[in-house]
């Protein structure tokens, strides 16, 4: 393939104007990454505010009003402006590279998808200077979210912001699907795609089916609040509070898979590379991903077990069943490591951290599928523990694994491994200190979303422990930020393929040129770069399947 002419003559512009107007999927991916990273720090500050207030009983640092804004905006920011876009950013950067395409199918729509994010984040955060941000919880249940009970402009801004995020997600999902279906390089059959691409594809399907439901629900809520609608307003005839919960969770439960599947994809790239083995059970993995996606739309009402308004056995059964494909993945990851030659880079540590922490989030999720158990711990700190083992122990650990793994590809320089390992140990310890005690708080009956608690309820020590853990996480972020700083100042050059990777992004330079490839290696398996590297090895070692 003589394709050198593909490289444009223009120099690789990196000025501010170029970053603002770029349609290059890699630059957009990097924009996603930094936008999410900044908002991760913002959401983290909200979390620290919550943990600080809960460190001991009594209201010491803020009023209930401030506290309610803090936990609402913590969850909103972390879900809608950190985890989902962080993973979409990885998708943006990696999917075209991994399938051997020059860019996303719709580069300008891609830029639009990104720029809606900082805009919407600003709109949501604008509530703070305008008299108070949204304070109804990220679930924004009606009738509490109706103007009678939440008259502040913060809630309206939150609705508008989430509508924009929804638009961004839908555009991005269509873009990913078209890119994956139509722009794969010759030889890149569906079953040779890297698992990360598969998870992005299934995630895009989930987004396309779920997000319009949430977006329209938000518009209905806006009509209720501002134009006298009665979709969810129980004070007016026809208004139904349970309807909001149905449409909200119809999106927001699959959203958990939107937030975990691509992180699973990242781990499924990192583990094989550093085990020097192919992913164990590639096809089983793909089917499990599709299975999670399909079952993911049949479990939303497990958030509503205590409403007395849903058919419990059905949603209980489906929730139990969705543990099965997740378990299949877990066993395949462990089997990938078995008999491998494991190399513990920081990326690998975060990937193994993902396995051991997400395991807890998975098991305590299955515990919650038992309705009578859910009757006890629903809306307590047990749920808070569960979701953080999934979204922090799972998604965030996966995101860090991905950052350490692909940073050299994105910027051509290696992050410092020593600082990385300090970062990992700090996060791992802090994460468990923060969230493990929450299981116990929930079992003993501490409700979530309370600004204060009785000193005699027996929750003092565990809350203090969780707060110490929260600050441990915050401190552990410092070596990471320092690492980014010194790497930009002059990190060790990475080379094209520093980790001996398997997938196509390692077959081009670091960072890759515009339009990605001068030359593609032949694609004959799900590991084209591995095949290229070992083309002359003894056949017995590389014999396929």
């Amino acid at each position, binding site marked *: 393939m003589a394709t050198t002419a593909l490289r444009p003559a223009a120099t690789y512009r990196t000025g501010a104007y170029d970053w603002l107007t770029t349609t290059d999927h890699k630059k957009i991916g990097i924009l996603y990454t930094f936008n999410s990273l900044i908002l991760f720090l913002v959401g983290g500050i909200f979390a620290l505010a919550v943990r600080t207030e809960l460190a001991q009983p009594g209201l010491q640092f803020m009023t*209930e009003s401030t506290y309610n804004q803090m936990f609402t905006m913590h969850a909103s920011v972390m879900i809608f402006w950190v985890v989902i876009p962080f993973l979409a950013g990885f998708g943006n950067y990696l999917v075209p590279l991994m399938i051997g395409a020059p860019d996303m199918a719709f580069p300008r729509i891609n830029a639009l998808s990104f720029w809606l994010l900082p805009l919407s984040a600003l709109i949501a955060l604008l509530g703070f200077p305008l008299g108070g941000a949204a304070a109804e919880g990220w679930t924004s*249940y009606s*009738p509490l979210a109706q103007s009678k009970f939440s008259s502040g402009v913060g809630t309206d801004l939150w609705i508008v912001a989430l509508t924009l995020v929804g638009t961004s997600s839908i555009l991005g999902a269509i873009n990913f699907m078209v890119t994956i279906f139509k722009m794969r390089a010759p030889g890149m059959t569906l079953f040779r795609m890297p698992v990360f691409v598969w998870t992005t594809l299934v995630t895009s399907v989930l987004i396309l089916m779920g997000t319009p439901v949430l977006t329209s629900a938000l518009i209905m809520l806006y009509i209720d609040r501002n134009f006298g609608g009665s979709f969810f307003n*129980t004070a007016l005839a026809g208004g139904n509070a349970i309807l909001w919960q149905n449409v909200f969770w119809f999106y927001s439960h699959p959203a958990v898979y939107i937030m975990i599947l691509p992180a699973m994809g990242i781990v499924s790239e990192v583990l094989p590379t550093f085990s020097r083995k192919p992913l*164990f059970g590639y096809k089983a993995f793909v089917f499990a991903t599709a299975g999670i996606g399909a079952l993911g739309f049949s479990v939303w009402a497990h958030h509503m077990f205590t409403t007395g308004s849903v058919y419990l056995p059905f949603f209980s059964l489906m929730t139990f069943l969705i543990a099965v494909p997740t378990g299949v993945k877990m066993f395949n990851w462990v089997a990938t490591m078995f008999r491998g030659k494991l190399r513990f880079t920081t990326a690998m540590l975060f990937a193994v951290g993902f396995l051991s922490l997400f395991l807890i989030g998975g098991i305590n999720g299955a515990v919650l599928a038992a309705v009578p158990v859910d*009757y006890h711990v629903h809306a307590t700190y047990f749920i808070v523990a569960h979701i953080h083992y999934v979204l922090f122990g799972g998604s965030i650990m996966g995101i860090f694994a991905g950052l350490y793994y692909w940073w050299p590809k994105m910027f051509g320089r290696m992050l410092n491994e020593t600082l990385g390992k300090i970062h990992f140990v700090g996060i791992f310890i802090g994460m*468990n200190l923060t969230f493990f005690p929450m299981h116990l708080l929930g079992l003993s009956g501490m409700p979530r979303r309370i600004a204060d608690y009785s000193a005699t309820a027996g929750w003092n020590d565990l809350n203090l422990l969780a707060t110490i853990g929260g600050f441990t996480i915050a401190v552990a972020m410092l070596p990471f930020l320092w690492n980014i700083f010194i790497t930009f100042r002059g990190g060790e050059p990475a080379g094209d393929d520093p980790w001996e990777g398997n997938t196509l992004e390692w077959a081009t330079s670091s960072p890759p040129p515009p339009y990605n490839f001068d030359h593609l290696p032949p694609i004959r398996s799900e590991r084209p770069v591995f095949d290229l590297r070992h083309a002359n090895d003894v056949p017995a070692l590389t014999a396929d399947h």
Partner: protein
Amino acid sequence: MGLGAKRWTRRAGFVAAVGALAVLLSACTDFNLRTALPPDAASVQGQASRNLYDIVFVIGVAIFVLVEGLILFAVLRYRRKSGDDELPPQIHGNNRLEIIWTAIPIAIVLSLFVLSWQTLNTVDAHTPTPPVRIGVVAYQWQWQFIYAPDGVRWEDCGAPANKGKCVTVFGTPPAGGDRSNWTPPTMHVPVNETVELQMHSIDVIHSFYVPAFLYQRDITPGRDQVIQFTADRIGTYRGQCTQFCGLYHQLMEFQVKVESNADYVAWLQQELTPPPSPSPSGPAGSPGAGAAAGTSVTLQLTASGVAYDKTDLTAPANTPFSILFANNDAGIPHNVSIHAGSATGTEVFKGEIFSGVDTRTYAVPALPAGTYAFVCSVHPNMTGTLTVK
């Protein structure tokens, strides 16, 4: 395993890092082994849930130990030695293993499902004739428990015909949010009797949760909920709203006092005996009739739909005055209290709290000129401004 002791020691630092999970988790569970389980159940239904939890917990721990053990084993056993550049065997998968680790989890979750469904049928079972029925009204941000005599619906307790027949327990928020000298409202129930709660919300969604019963149920406006439980252990148990319901959600606590049948009946009798009537409260209906001597001004104020009809009142300075207060919310307690400055300021007057539909005339002592807030002690979001000049 074929691994020399020397090689293990070389890995000590690494083992320490990865073993952090095991150490940390065991530290946590040691420290709190008591709280790794739900509280001891104080109801028949709670005990059923607790038994289910124990089974699910044991299975969960077994899976955790198995998989976490496999991860740790792989991490320790298969570490790449420095200088070892040989590729490990390139194993792409094994269909038999895939079938095994799909089928076994399916079997486990299906059994758990059947088990939990059976428990659910116990927990949610209802008898048509519960001996005790209690009305539970939830509102921002308190609870109210209404005991109606046989043949009277709790909803009708506010009707004039039923005056004095019902017992109403309601909470008031702690002054200044300080819980230290505060007792949340207490629901009394007899032990070993099936109690039915008919639950109603008048504003937003709340949730009735008693950890010792291992049970909670949302109370959505427009969808009254009926639950039944049989408390089987005498004692006082904490309860709290678990569905976030706005500003003072954290203060929506209550207690359940499970007592012997005799104690319960005695308590009901005591509550039914009317307390000595506070002298300033005059008979209803005739404005100013019961006002204290020397008052010349009577302000009128009405509560309905958990809101005052006025947000601004004006009264003369340095002169006693009276407030004719009509509570039009059937069965819902209100009052008028006056705070200096704002609703969180010092309380300078507190009127008697009473349930509607009824009226009282409050005699308010002379107040110096200034701005005050009038507030319902039961519903802190019912407020208005009182200007004294």
